[in-house]
């Protein structure tokens, strides 16, 4: 299980990297943390002509807080998110999700930008980005554009990023006072990709939930906002019975198919369970 041959380029600036991509005519692959790409190379599922290693581009790393926005550079590794006081304080949803991401050695190398670029439908970070309404910064020779998470995830491992673009950073709105979050996933083993998961945020006003956003992962070909079910929660309230009734409309939000983890019926059932449990955890957190 050895990687095929490729050319290796290690630019030291974003500009240099973009030059390589611009000239590669779609035959280049970006190597960030490598925790998913390296297995794909070993299995020869990925066979790029050029591998562009962006690990030595300083402007792609770092976590900053500005004007109620947390900007996280694409090369920021999970371990840095875990250690970040900014994340702990302003992105509690991410903080809750992190322990579910793979294992120590993977979190030491894996990057948030890599996860958002790969867009595995069962991964945690894409769902968090969706739940939080993140903006994804895509840079190319022709400039920077921002794409909202809802417009970024297009399908199975498919995103709005073009081959000549680099995902430079992701911007999250910092949690406001009065907001709450919940995160729940079902996985066979600790650190495995989820069979199903839900990441949610809401404002709590007088015991009721407003602006509930529930991002479902592992339930469809991409992370999906459960808009209908969330609206049902806002309409019906937060009793266990109301949550269960709201979860029943999830079939209008997500469309799981048969896969190795279960048939479509079971996967939809799991979607309902994780939806309820994530929202229940959100509620639980507000009772402090």
């Amino acid at each position: 299980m050895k990687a095929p041959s490729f050319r290796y380029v290690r630019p030291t600036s974003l500009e240099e990297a973009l030059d390589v991509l611009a000239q590669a005519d779609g035959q280049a692959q970006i190597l960030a943390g490598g925790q998913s790409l390296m297995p794909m190379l070993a299995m020869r599922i990925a066979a790029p002509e050029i591998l562009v290693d962006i690990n030595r581009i300083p402007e792609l790393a770092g976590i900053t807080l500005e004007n109620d926005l947390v900007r996280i550079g694409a090369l920021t590794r999970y371990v840095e998110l875990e250690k970040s006081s900014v994340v702990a304080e302003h992105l509690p949803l991410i903080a809750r999700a992190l322990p579910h991401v793979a294992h120590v050695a993977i979190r030491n190398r894996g990057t948030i930008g890599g996860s958002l670029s790969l867009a595995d439908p069962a991964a945690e970070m894409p769902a968090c980005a969706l739940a939080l309404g993140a903006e994804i910064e895509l840079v190319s020779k022709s400039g920077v554009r921002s794409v909202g998470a809802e417009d970024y995830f297009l399908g199975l491992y498919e995103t709005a990023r073009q081959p000549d673009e680099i995902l430079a950073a992701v911007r999250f709105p910092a949690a406001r006072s009065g907001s709450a979050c919940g995160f729940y996933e079902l996985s066979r083993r600790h650190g495995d990709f989820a069979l199903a998961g839900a990441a949610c945020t809401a404002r709590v006003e007088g015991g009721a939930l407003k602006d509930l956003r529930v991002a479902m992962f592992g339930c469809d070909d991409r992370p999906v906002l459960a808009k209908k079910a969330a609206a049902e929660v806002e309409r019906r309230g937060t009793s266990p019975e109301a949550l269960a009734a709201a979860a029943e409309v999830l079939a209008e939000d997500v469309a799981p198919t048969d896969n190795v983890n279960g048939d479509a019926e079971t996967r939809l059932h799991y979607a309902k369970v994780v939806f309820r449990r994530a929202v229940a955890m959100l509620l639980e957190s507000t009772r402090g």
Partner: protein
Amino acid sequence: MDEFVDISLTLNGRPVRRRVPVRQHLVDFLRTELGLTGSHVGCEHGVCGACTLRVDGRAARGCLMLAVQADGCSVETIEGLTESGEIADLQEAFVARNALQCGFCTPGVLITAAELLGRGQPMDRAAIRAFMSGNYCRCTGYQAIVDAIEATLRARLERAASTGDGGR
């Protein structure tokens, strides 16, 4: 055709320069070019943890990094950690508790456990199990591994409490 690149790195505290094929992963490089066979190749797709190394002070999968990416890095292997004596107490606990059988997973397990110990935080068995959850062991059933790590952690924390040095 293979493309080669010159790299230099610090390996177990000593400088090393080599010319490597760019597609070669780090653990293959260490094993075949440098004869450091203590790190093992178990799955080559990042799941089993047998190739776990320390890169720039943190545990990393040796099969999920190219050797060329280690250019300029500090890489430590089980051989280095053994010679420095940093994990002598942990190794002794593994032997005493029989926390290994075939030993193929053990170098990777020890490096992950060294990171756990390095955090200097008390952990219960469930937390130790979660921390170690990325290292596959087919032989032991894990209990002896957890026992050995738990005993070493406790001893280090007690020593730190009595000397106030933060557990390292």
